[in-house]
């Protein structure tokens, strides 16, 4: 059986998640993620043609709330938790490029 996930895959996912991993960590996580995927492969090997994909484990649907305004947080309190603030706004490092 071929490896379910490569070291390069793990490095790619880590980069997308903005995680810096050492070489040792890359090895560790590659084998850990491989064992998780092996377990998924066990499930996939079953005959599941008659089973709908499960997005959620609990038998609940259509949970909504009424469109009614609730109190917001106090801005000073919120901004006091931020590393940096200015003019009532969160101050963050310069943004490169635009949002996706």
């Amino acid at each position: 059986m071929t490896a379910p996930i490569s070291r390069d895959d793990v490095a790619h996912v880590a980069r997308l998640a903005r995680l810096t991993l050492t070489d040792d960590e890359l090895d560790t996580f590659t084998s850990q993620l491989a064992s998780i995927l092996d377990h998924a492969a066990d499930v996939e090997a079953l005959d599941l043609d008659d089973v709908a994909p499960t997005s959620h484990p609990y038998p609940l649907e259509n949970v909504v709330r009424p469109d009614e305004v609730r109190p917001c947080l106090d801005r000073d309190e919120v901004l006091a938790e931020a590393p940096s603030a200015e003019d009532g706004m969160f101050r963050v490092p310069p943004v490169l490029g635009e949002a996706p």
Partner: protein
Amino acid sequence: MTATTASDQGGAFTELPSGYRLVVGLEVHVELHTATKLFCGCPNQFGDDPNTNVCPVCLGLPGSMPVLNAQAMELAMRLGRALHCEVRPSVFARKNYFYPDMPKDYQVSQYDQPTNVDGHLDLPDGTRIGIERAHIEEDTGKSTHVGGGGRIHDAAYSLVDYNRCGVPLVEIVSRPDFRTAEQAKAYVNELRAILVATGVSDAKMEEGSLRVDANVSVHQPDTPFGTRCEIKNINSVRSLGRAIEYEALRQVDLLEAGERVIQQTRHWNEDEGRTHMLRSKEEAEDYRYFPEPDLVPMVPDPARIEAIDAALPRLPAERRAALAEAAGRTLPDESVTIVVDRGLDELALDAVAAGADADRTLTHLQHDLDPDHAANVPAAHLAQLVELETSGALTASQAKQVVAEMGETGKAPEAIAAERGFEAMDTSELEGIVDEAIAANGEAWEKYCAGEQKAQGAIVGHVMKATRGQADGKLVSQLLEQRRSA
């Protein structure tokens, strides 16, 4: 280089240099007109002080849990039905990316199971544009770049306001069915009219509650579609047309130079009138969507969808068709479209049903009656006014003034005409005045008789002066013509 609109049996298309044709699809984001955000009770309100409409949910604080706004779901389904979509069971998904305007580092959207699929929108000219999907998602915050030259890439730092973060949106994804920039503009105008008529959104492009991205490509007829580029930062319907035309010509230039079009996102610069590259698509699109575990599936009740259908207002396309038919047109023309846009189509239909001439009725409702004054004008008054004009008791310009005053005062047309001294001028009286005018303008009359049509201006002017503008210009011309050929 130019781009012109031509048409073949398949409808209108944009004629680009070297025989290329344009293909466009639009992605339109609309903010839903709710009292609160999509997943929390913060007000959905434009223009408040920064970060005053925020709570743990929309700030993405640990441990907070989203709960779906029932009204947002209702409006999204209403929009879906107005666009003739199938409303289906849906699942929310997380779209993962890092950007400071999304404090959770993911946006809650719908991915493979959107609420609305497979609809369409008919343009006023009859072109049908397919709607692939219309899914629900949350808006992002707003970042302002400070320092440097005010430009993104040399900003010293950014400031973020999360008031808009979590505001409910529907993203309407069209099929690549546009062949001209005009069609794309007409689609956005039509979509706005539908959004306003259904109460789904106030659809103000200038406030950002309606945003348009355009996917533009070019190809040669009978060959597959070309590689597309997505154009962002389009802030008005006019810019949409300009951006599409610029981008299409840019792509034709590349292809003609033997280069290829690279799939990418480009930014429209309104001042420079051009697009520039933001990022290449090939590296950017890896959002690792997965089902949002904190929100349960939505399964619409068929009875609810029936109720939504029953409560939908008559939509612009249907209203245009009804008015066109009543006015004896096979297809809606510009006058029909404008009268429907101005919301005066009910009045037009009633006036025509009361016997008013359709062309004159549409002309007045297109130009002369302020839509805000429509409640002052019963259809019977409008029909009477048109009848006065048709019978020749009022000239076209008098009728115009009477209509405006009917709107302002609610008075009947005859009363207004009498007050203004707009009495029908006896033709024999007018003939006398025309003869006097000819006598007083001998030189002009000779030129006119010699075939110089515009020489009649001096004589008509004399008549108008003598009648204090009350004479019917068309009738004066007729009388002059009769005398010339006598």
